[in-house]
C-alpha cells in the first residue's frame, strides 16, 4: 500500500481533467496502487456533480430533447473522438510493473509493451532514462531505471516534478519511496535520490521543465546527456 501520496490539488486536477495528459498518466499510475487516493478522487467527482447541480444556467440553453437514440452531434471532431472501449494490449515485459494507464499510454505512443524495447539512454553511472514524451518547454514524461546503490547527481528542478516508483525503492533527504509511492518535488527543492540495495529501481517521472544540475560534475553531466 502506498505511503506517500500526491497533494490534494493533483487529485482534484485529475478528477476535473485540469491537468495535462502526461501528468494524468502518472496520477492514474499512483491511483492504481492507492485505494485511499481513489476514494479522494471519487469524493472530488461527487463535488463536481454537486457543482453541476448548482451551476449558473443560461435560459437560452434550455431546449427540448431530440430523439435520444439519434444524437444530433455530427461534427467531425465528435465522430472521430476516441470510442470508449480501449483496444486490447499485447502482453509484454512491462506488464509486471506498469499499471494499465501507463501501459496503454506507452503502447499508444511507442507501439510496444516491452520494457527493453523502450528508448533507454545513459543518464549517469548505473542509471538509464527512457523519454516517453518531450514537451516544447523541455519538460518530459520519462521512465528512470537504476541499479541497486546508484546515486543520482544532486539536482534541483525548473518546475515541480512528480515521481511514482514502479519497482524497487529509493531514498532521499525526505524519506524512503517504495512501489506505488508518489513524490512531489517542488521547484525550490534540491535532492539526491539513492537507490536501495536489493534490486533495480524503476520509476515514472513527469516534469514541466528540465532538471537543474547543482555542482560542477552534475552540470557537466547534463551537457553530456542532454538531460
Amino acid at each position, binding site marked *: 500500500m502506498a505511503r506517500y501520496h500526491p497533494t490534494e490539488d493533483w487529485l*482534484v486536477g485529475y478528477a476535473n481533467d485540469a491537468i495535462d495528459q502526461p501528468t494524468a498518466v502518472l*496520477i492514474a499510475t499512483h491511483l492504481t496502487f492507492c485505494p485511499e487516493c481513489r476514494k479522494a*478522487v471519487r469524493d*472530488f467527482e*461527487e463535488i463536481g456533480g*454537486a457543482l453541476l447541480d448548482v451551476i449558473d*444556467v443560461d435560459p437560452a440553453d434550455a431546449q427540448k430533447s431530440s430523439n435520444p437514440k439519434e444524437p444530433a452531434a455530427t461534427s467531425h471532431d465528435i465522430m472521430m*473522438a476516441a470510442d470508449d472501449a480501449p483496444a486490447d494490449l499485447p502482453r509484454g515485459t512491462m506488464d509486471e510493473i506498469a499499471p*494499465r494507464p501507463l501501459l496503454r499510454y506507452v503502447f499508444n505512443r511507442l507501439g510496444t509493451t516491452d520494457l527493453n524495447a523502450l528508448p533507454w539512454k545513459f543518464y549517469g553511472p548505473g542509471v538509464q532514462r527512457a523519454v516517453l514524451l518531450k514537451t516544447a518547454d523541455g519538460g518530459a514524461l520519462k521512465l528512470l531505471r537504476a541499479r541497486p546503490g546508484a546515486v543520482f547527481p544532486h539536482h534541483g528542478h525548473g518546475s515541480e516534478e512528480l515521481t511514482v516508483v514502479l519497482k524497487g525503492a529509493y531514498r532521499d533527504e525526505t524519506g524512503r519511496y517504495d512501489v506505488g509511492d508518489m513524490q512531489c518535488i517542488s521547484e525550490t527543492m534540491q535532492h539526491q535520490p539513492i537507490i536501495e540495495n536489493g534490486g533495480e529501481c524503476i520509476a515514472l517521472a513527469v516534469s514541466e521543465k528540465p532538471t537543474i544540475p547543482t555542482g560542477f560534475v552534475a552540470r557537466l553531466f547534463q551537457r553530456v546527456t542532454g538531460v
Partner: protein
Amino acid sequence: MKNGLIVISPGPNERGQLALPVTTRARYCDQKNSSGCISRRRSPVFRVRVKKGAGVQTAPGSTDPALTQRPGKALHRRSDIRTKLLLRVKSTRCEQAFNRLYEYYSPRLCAYLRQKGAPDRISQEVMQDVMARVWEKAAQFDPRYANASTWVFTIARNRFVDILRKEQRSFIDPDDPLLVGGDCVTADENLAKADNRRELSEAIHSLPEPQAEVLSLVYLNGLKQREAAEKLDIPLNTVKSRLRLALEKLRTVMENN
C-alpha cells in the same frame, strides 16, 4: 465566457417535477473586482439529497454484474429525483424520464462545457453527445457508487477530454492485475453513509465566498491553481489553502464525521 457564477437553482417541487431553473442573479459583484465573482442566494426550497457513493468512473464497458442489478428498495427511496429518473431509464428505457433528465442537464452541461473553454457551437454538440451517452449507457449506471449528477459529470468530463483535447483519459482499470485494494462498497455501507450524507449543495452554498470562488475556478473553469492565483491576483499559497479548506469542509459533510 462567463465568470464562475454559482446561483442556486430551485429544486424539484412537491410533485417531483423538475422545473427548469430560473436564473435570477442575486448580486453582481463590483465591476472593479477583476476576478469575477460568485453570487449565491439561498433558496428556501432548494434541497438536493445527494446520494453518497463511491463514484469512480472506471474503465467504461465494465461487465461487472453488480452494475446491472436492481438497487435495494431502501437505497432507491433515498435517491434524489434525478437518480430515480435515471434508474427508470436504466430499467425500462423510459423516454419520458430521459426527456426530463435532458431538460435538467442540457443547460447545465452547456454552462459547464462553456466554462471549461469550449466554444458555444461545440459545447452544444458535446452536450448532446453526452446526453446520448447517458441514454446509451444507462444500463451501466450503478447508484451504489454515484448519484446521477456525479455520473453525468464524469461522462461530460471524459467526453471533453476525448473530443476537445483529443486525448484519451487515463482510466483506472478495475481488472488491472496491479490494482491494490478493491473498490467494493457494500450496499449496507452505502445505506449508512446515505443517512449521514446531507445537502452537499447546501455545504457548497455556505462556503465563504473566497473559498467558493477558488473552487469554482478550479472545478468549473478547469484552471490550475497557479492560473487561478494569476486570475485572482493573489498568492498561489492563498489559492492552495482556500481550495484545501473548501474541500475539507465538503468532504467532512460527505463523511459526516
